[in-house]
């Protein structure tokens, strides 16, 4: 018995030893998986340059689309249903109709009557007025999202078309726009890249870095300091890596932000199959080393600590746009331009007014549950001196679905109807006499603008201060650069203005502190006095 059991023991020990050794060496099974994984690095099974449909010649964009649709028969139908195409978004939570077609912002204010300029960022061709045919399949622009040459650019005033002959823009600037080689471009198609999405999303608001603050041209090829996920030399994520798509609808819209993704890590078949939240990959308790950090995820969005500042890539973002000063022209009748101190941007532009630009901006923080309500066209505003919100964030400390989120707070000063008390739609772009950039006549521009959206303009206009809250979610910094504890846990930290809860390091009970320190000082004075008195008396008598 004894001998037998010791033999078994020895065998068990050997087995254990083998297992240990195996765990240090690479096991054959894992190695095989690695080889397969390497071979499985996605390569398309189609070389579009070999397709006879794509040999051209193509006179314009829609002709290319026609060729695409010959094989991708359902693509245009899918796109017709998307926000990217419709510029319309219905938010069930707030019962509001949003989308570029509908909302007012505090940048260029509104799309209506300014179509060809604004729709240079539409994924279609020819949306030059409000009569655009949204059912046209051939007018879907496949190339802007899928071309990979980097030579295809929509012309800034071309209603979504590139140039087909050489043009100058802005007029008189000497900047030449050359027609792209549509055959080469069409044959290059592939998956979307950061440059494709960035062609519009990096330039929102009329220029590089203007709008979002966390999206600008420096994100085309960011380094790890700027964004750990999109780091061109590292993970090199494309936008679609997180903004997963289904039937061409892209997930992760700002209009309906997911303030917290309680699904946690996405497992195919079990969850919602979108990765447009941090939690989709990192889960709800992602910190391995310091468990205390996980205690924050029920109240603080990942972005609040991991995006310490936005506009970090070297391009300043616009923080304020004051339309009220627009219209100053020089002696030649040209808009006055004043540069910022660093020369990077315009501090004043006669066409647009005064700006404030900032780099490395510390976000503003607010409670947020993902619900955003917009001040829509025709909605009454309060002009009694306060700031009019372009959008309002829902959420509070007492709401378990709210998290503290970082935001860019865009400040504006924009025209409104003083009598009707509504924000106005200015007709800015165009060659007609009413266009603000033609005649710099506010009443004319506002009248035509308001008419176009079916609203009455009283003729009395003024300028009102507005604010627009932009959730910050890109430019994720390396973890060493995340906001440290005392970024918030301090008397005047980042969360100084965020209310509804007690936070150690920030909050105290001032009267308790006063009484407490008073007692401490009294005790100290008492013992010192006692000791001193003893010393004095003993010296005198001794």
């Amino acid at each position, binding site marked *: 018995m004894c001998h037998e059991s010791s033999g078994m023991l020895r065998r068990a020990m050997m087995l254990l030893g083998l297992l240990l050794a195996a765990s240090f060496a690479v096991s054959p099974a894992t190695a095989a998986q690695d080889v397969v994984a390497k071979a499985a690095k996605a390569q398309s099974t189609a070389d579009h340059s070999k397709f006879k449909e794509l040999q051209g010649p193509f006179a314009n964009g829609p002709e290319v689309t026609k060729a695409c649709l010959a094989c991708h028969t359902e693509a245009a139908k899918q796109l017709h249903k998307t926000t990217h195409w419709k510029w319309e978004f219905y938010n069930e939570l707030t019962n509001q109709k949003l989308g570029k077609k509908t909302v007012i912002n505090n940048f260029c204010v509104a799309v209506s009557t300014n179509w060809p300029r604004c729709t240079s960022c539409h994924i279609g061709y020819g949306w030059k007025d409000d009569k655009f045919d949204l059912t046209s399949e051939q007018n879907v622009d496949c190339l802007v999202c899928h071309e990979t040459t980097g030579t295809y650019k929509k012309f800034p005033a071309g209603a979504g078309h590139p140039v087909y002959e050489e043009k100058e823009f802005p007029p008189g600037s000497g900047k030449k726009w050359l027609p792209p080689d549509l055959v080469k471009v069409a044959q290059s198609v592939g998956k979307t890249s950061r440059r494709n999405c960035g062609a519009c999303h990096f330039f929102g608001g009329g220029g590089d870095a203007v709008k979002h603050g966390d999206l600008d041209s420096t994100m085309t090829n960011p380094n790890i300091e700027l964004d750990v996920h999109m780091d061109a030399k590292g993970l090199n994520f494309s936008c679609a890596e997180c903004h997963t798509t289904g039937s061409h609808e892209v997930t992760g819209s700002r209009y309906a932000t997911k303030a917290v993704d309680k699904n946690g890590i996405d497992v195919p078949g079990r969850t919602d199959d979108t990765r447009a939240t941090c939690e989709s990959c990192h889960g709800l308790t992602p910190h391995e080393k310091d468990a205390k950090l996980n205690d924050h995820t029920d109240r603080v969005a990942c972005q609040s600590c991991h995006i310490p500042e936005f506009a970090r890539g070297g391009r300043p973002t616009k923080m304020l746009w004051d339309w009220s000063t627009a219209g100053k022209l020089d002696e030649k009748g040209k808009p006055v331009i004043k540069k910022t101190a660093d020369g990077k941007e315009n501090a004043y532009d006669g066409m647009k007014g005064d700006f404030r630009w900032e780099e490395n901006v510390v976000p503003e923080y607010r409670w947020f549950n993902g619900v955003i309500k917009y001040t829509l066209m025709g909605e009454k505003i309060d002009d009694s001196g306060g700031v009019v919100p372009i959008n309002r964030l829902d959420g509070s400390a007492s709401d378990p679905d709210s998290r503290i989120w970082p935001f860019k707070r865009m400040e504006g000063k924009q025209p409104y109807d003083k009598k009707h008390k509504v924000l106005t739609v200015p007709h800015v772009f165009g060659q007609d006499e009413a266009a603000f950039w033609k005649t710099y006549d506010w009443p004319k521009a506002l009248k035509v603008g308001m008419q176009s959206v079916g609203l009455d303009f009283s003729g009395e206009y003024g300028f009102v201060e507005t604010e627009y809250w932009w959730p910050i979610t890109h430019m994720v910094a390396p973890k060493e650069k995340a906001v*440290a504890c005392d970024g918030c846990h*301090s008397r005047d930290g980042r969360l100084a203005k965020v209310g509804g*809860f007690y936070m150690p*390091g*920030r909050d*105290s009970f001032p009267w308790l502190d006063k009484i*407490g320190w008073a007692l401490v000082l009294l005790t*100290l004075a*008492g013992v010192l006095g006692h000791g001193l*008195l003893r010393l004095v008396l003993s010296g005198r008598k001794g």
Partner: protein
Amino acid sequence: MQTALVFSRFERFWHWSQALLIIGLMITGFEIHGTYQWLGFEQASSLHKTMAWTLIVLWVFAIFWHLTTGQWRQYVPTGQNLLAVVRYYTVGIFQKDVPHPYKKTVRAKHNPLQRLAYLGFKLLISPLIWITGLLYMYYNDWPALGLGGLPLGTVAFLHTLAAFAMLVFFIGHVYMAAFTGHPWYSYLKGMITGYEEVEE
């Protein structure tokens, strides 16, 4: 009068390590509270937590020691001689050659005032600071513990209150125990060597 071992080796170890931990906890605690910035919140709170757990472990041993040795009886309050001791510290100590009215023995080494002070430390200040401190540490588990409705501010308030009480005790104790003997350092010396002059 004779010299005897009044503070055993464990008792001295407990006293001095507890003293160091309490000083450390006060320094880090008031930084966490936002009173000043020195180590930074992250390091202060991490150290605070480590020292708190160390002190808790020390107390588990100390409680065991008190119960098994019967030393807990040293802290049973008594009114006998209390006024005399108070009169000594307020009047007699300033006069020449007024002796301490309390005659210390090995079985009753604390005077009535000490008994009261240490009992208050052990039964009021410490439990309050620990219960609120542990609650603070496990803030995220409150809902699971059925404490979901408890506001953090209340716990923070009581913890801070206890911390001030601890600091007041600390100042009073350091003065009384380190500077009021004959010679002035005699109690301090006793706490270090363990030996003191006692009645038979």
